[in-house]
């Protein structure tokens, strides 16, 4: 132990003060010859011993207090070997680069990497000395972009350095540091990287000029940092559990060196609907699939998948917004309506499209006859099925054709009401292929297998048949005894035969017309020409066909962005203001020049991961929520990768200035702890005096 003011040690002589006071007090006390006190109290040995002990203790405390006070004034200190970098004091320029990305929120022994780095930075400021020009930069783009000797201000900058959700860009921070040092007039220049050396914080190829020293001060001494992260999240519809079914696929990565089990929970809205776990080998990533069904009437879902808590919380959660499959609106045009239900042309179609008449079938059915088709607004429907419909008037055919070109899906089925020639003449734009003539295999024959056709070639990769197994027993077993033979045609582009009968005749033909789709079934949808309707393959066949014709196979998830990216927001015609509410209740507004005359506006300032809700305000001031524009902002998936790199290639010594002296040892002031001892002594002395006053025995001879 050494002293900064050793002369103050003369104050140790102050220890004599209590003794002097004691002696002086004795001298001033009057002497009373008295027999009774000695008789009554002097015989009590316990009192005498306690009195003696207390008085000696009190005197010792007071002497110690005087001595400790003198030692504190002498400012004692000790030295120890510095474990930090060799830092030279004196005039120099130094840039401290601190990683404040979300990865720096990694907790190690109850302290985040960022707080460790900030502590190291504060110590560095002390070690560099007041003559050093210092700048503080962060890996996410913030900091004090100038060299300064205002160390007090620099400390304030350090203390106010926040954790950012942006990705660490160590390469950019180094370039900014080089630019600062290039303008510095000092001979000695240094860069101190107070970062965990990961792929994100340390550039793979960086070479500093020869006169600039580079030091990496990792806040972690460990070789690797264990971390689990949700690195991706995808949502798709899952029709196997209904029209509101969703399939959520979360990608989970283990960035650590030990195998781990990740416990995941799926939250839809505010409710946890599923949990699961994934076993992960070191540095392995796996997908975990969840299925969820939305509540009735809910078409938009805010989904998040969350990992159990680990050292780095920021990457344990990922957000996505998904829309459930839209319901398909189907118009059934009945060409052969019957009073007896099961004889009706569309009895089996309706049963297949709304099995059990369930509301979650995903299909909205409307019925019409060829006669009342005219007044209907076709754009209200996604799919129209013309079942055994006689030739329609030209205006209706044109309207239907335009509707198909605009994106509608039309399925035409045959029947006794269909006249091939008249169809070809009048309804050509609605046919995927020209009709030739009807083939009735039972005419003049008895019913026999030879008098029936069966499906033999299916395009199984096509969406209509993709749900069937290779042998498709529910379809191949169906019998067709009457079909419409199709003529050769070249007028329709993008025509494709999806199914054929075993005699080679086309059974189902698809053609693209503009944005829409035409399908032609060369037989009936009831049991007049075939018995397909009573086979198990009929229901999926018809549902897949309708879904395919509606061009709404799956609703894509809303857009996902990374924190720090910009987001394009669509602007409606009458919108005067766009409001975006973030996850932390913060609001961002786009208005005025940013949206006037634009179809899309750029939204910057996405700094927090989470879900952002968009609403628009029109000229009348009405606010309209826009759930389709809701978007999720997530962290960069590589952020959680805390695999530490070697820093040897990056670190180097700069040219040392004259008079520089490395300081391998560190001074530790001791007066704080000695002052604490002084307070303790004062407390003890007070307690002892109080006890002495209560018993009255103050001093002994």
């Amino acid at each position: 132990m050494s002293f900064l003011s050793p002369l103050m040690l003369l104050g140790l002589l102050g220890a004599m003060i209590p003794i002097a006071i004691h002696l002086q007090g004795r001298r001033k006390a009057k002497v009373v010859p008295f027999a009774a006190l000695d008789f009554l109290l002097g015989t009590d040995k316990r009192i005498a011993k306690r009195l003696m002990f207390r008085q000696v203790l009190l005197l010792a405390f007071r002497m110690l207090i005087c001595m400790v006070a003198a030692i504190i004034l002498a400012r004692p200190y000790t030295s120890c070997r510095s474990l930090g970098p060799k830092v030279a004091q004196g005039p120099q320029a130094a840039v401290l680069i601190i990683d404040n990305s979300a990865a720096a929120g990694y907790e190690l022994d109850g302290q985040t990497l960022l707080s460790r780095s900030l502590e190291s930075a504060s110590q560095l400021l002390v070690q560099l000395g007041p003559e050093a020009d210092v700048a503080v930069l962060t890996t996410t783009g913030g900091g004090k972009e100038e060299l300064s000797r205002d160390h007090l201000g620099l400390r304030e900058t350090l203390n106010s350095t926040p954790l950012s959700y942006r990705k660490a860009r160590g390469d950019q921070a180094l370039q900014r540091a080089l630019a600062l040092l290039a303008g510095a007039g000092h001979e000695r220049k240094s860069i101190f990287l107070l970062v965990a050396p990961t792929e994100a914080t340390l550039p793979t190829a960086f070479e500093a000029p020869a006169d600039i020293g580079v030091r990496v001060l990792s806040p972690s001494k460990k070789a690797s940092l264990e971390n689990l992260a949700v690195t991706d999240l995808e949502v798709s519809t899952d029709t196997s559990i209904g029209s509101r079914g969703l399939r959520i696929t979360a990608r989970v990565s283990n960035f650590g060196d030990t195998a781990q089990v990740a416990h995941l929970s799926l939250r839809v809205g505010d409710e946890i609907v599923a949990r699961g776990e994934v076993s992960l080998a070191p540095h392995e990533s796996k997908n975990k699939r969840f299925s969820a069904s939305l509540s009735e009437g809910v078409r938009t879902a805010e989904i998040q998948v969350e990992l159990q808590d680990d050292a780095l919380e920021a990457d344990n959660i990922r957000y996505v917004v998904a829309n459930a499959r839209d319901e398909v609106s189907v118009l059934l045009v009945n060409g052969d309506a019957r009073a007896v239900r099961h004889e009706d042309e569309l009895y089996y179609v309706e049963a297949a499209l709304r099995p059990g008449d369930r509301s979650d079938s995903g299909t909205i059915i409307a019925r019409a006859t060829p006669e009342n088709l005219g007044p209907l607004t076709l754009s209200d429907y996604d799919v129209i099925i013309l079942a055994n419909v006689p030739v329609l008037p030209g205006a209706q055919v044109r309207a239907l054709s335009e509707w198909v070109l605009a994106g509608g899906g039309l399925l035409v089925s045959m029947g006794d009401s269909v006249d091939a020639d008249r169809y070809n003449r009048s309804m050509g734009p609605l046919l995927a292929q020209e009709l030739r003539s009807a083939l009735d295999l039972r005419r003049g024959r008895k019913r026999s297998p030879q008098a029936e056709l069966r499906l033999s070639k299916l395009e199984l990769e096509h969406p209509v048949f993709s749900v069937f197994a290779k042998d498709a027993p529910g379809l191949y077993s169906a019998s067709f005894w009457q079909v419409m033979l199709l003529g050769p045609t070249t007028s329709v582009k993008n025509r494709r035969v999806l199914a054929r009968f075993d005699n080679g005749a086309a059974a189902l033909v698809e053609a693209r017309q503009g944005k829409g789709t035409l399908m032609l079934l060369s037989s009936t949808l009831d049991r007049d020409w075939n018995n397909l309707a009573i086979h198990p393959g009929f229901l999926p066949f018809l549902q897949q066909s309708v879904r395919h014709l509606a061009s709404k196979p799956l609703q894509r998830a809303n857009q996902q962005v990374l924190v720090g990216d910009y987001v394009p927001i669509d602007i409606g015609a009458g919108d005067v203001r766009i409001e975006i509410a973030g996850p932390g209740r913060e609001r961002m507004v786009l208005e005025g020049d940013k949206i006037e005359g634009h179809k899309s506006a750029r939204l910057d300032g996405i700094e927090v991961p989470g879900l952002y809700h968009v609403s628009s305000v029109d000229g009348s001031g009405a606010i309209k929520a826009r759930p389709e524009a809701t978007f999720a902002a997530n962290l960069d998936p590589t952020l959680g990768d805390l695999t530490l790199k070697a820093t040897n290639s990056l670190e180097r010594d700069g040219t040392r200035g004259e008079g520089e002296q490395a300081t391998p040892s560190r001074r530790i002031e001791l007066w704080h702890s000695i002052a604490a001892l002084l307070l303790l002594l004062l407390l003890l002395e007070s307690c002892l005096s109080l006890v002495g006053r209560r018993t009255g025995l103050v001093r002994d001879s």
Partner: protein
Amino acid sequence: MAFLAPIAIAKLETLALRAKVIVEGALTGSHRAKLRGSSVEFAEHKEYSQGDEIRHVDWKVLGKADRYYIKQFEQESELTCYLVLDASASMNYVGRSLGKREYACNLIGALAYLLVGQRDRVGLSIFGDARNVRWAQPKAKADHLRTLLAMLEEVSDSPQVGDEVLSSALERLAELARKRRGLIIVASDLFETEGDAPSVLGHLRARGHDVVLFHTLDRDELDFPFEGLSIFESLEGDGRLLVDPASIRRIYQEKMKGFLEHCEQQCLSQGIEYHRVCTDQPFEEVLLGFLAERAGVAGSSSQRPRGQAT
């Protein structure tokens, strides 16, 4: 009744004069002393009952009234009284009134004056210094009073340094007075660290002596009125205690109260007449209290010691 203050009496030149003033001050206009010499005086008649001696039958009354009455006589034998004065160092304390030793000397002197005046045999034992035993045989002569007062005056005038304990002095007295039982009057503060003084007095009582104790204390010893940091020096030993008196007053008073109650209880239980005497109490008051107590003793077989000073 107004009495002279002890301080005032102490101003009288000789102890003989002081004793006379005390005794005459106490007896003038009050009553006759009940302590009597050796004579037989008629007291009263009592109707004869079985067991009474025939020789005490008053035949004259029988002749006049034809009834049997017994003549009762008051036994008045020559009293042997041993006066015991504690002259140990603890009695040297002098407070705001008379010193304990001087007060005790005056009190014993007055008693000697009174007793010799009644032609009782009076002895004196002054203890305190084992190397200088002062002892006067009990005698009833008038000039014996001068001897006694001279011994007391000598002790009263000079501070004593002895530390002889009361118990050893009383044992010596018991040996000297073994042939003749009598009245033993002790004036002491009972401050002794060895043995239990009331118990020793109890031994004398057990041997048939009539024992009277004047527990002589100073007011300071009762109230402990000292203020300011003080060094208390033991009068009998080498102990010194630096202490703030105000802060230990309560403890001291509690201990003193316990000590006094113990002494009184011990005396009560052993049939010892106990008088607690404070040095600011008039001698006459103490003497009258004593005489009144003795009258009670003479008139009743039960003896009830009682304290006076508080």
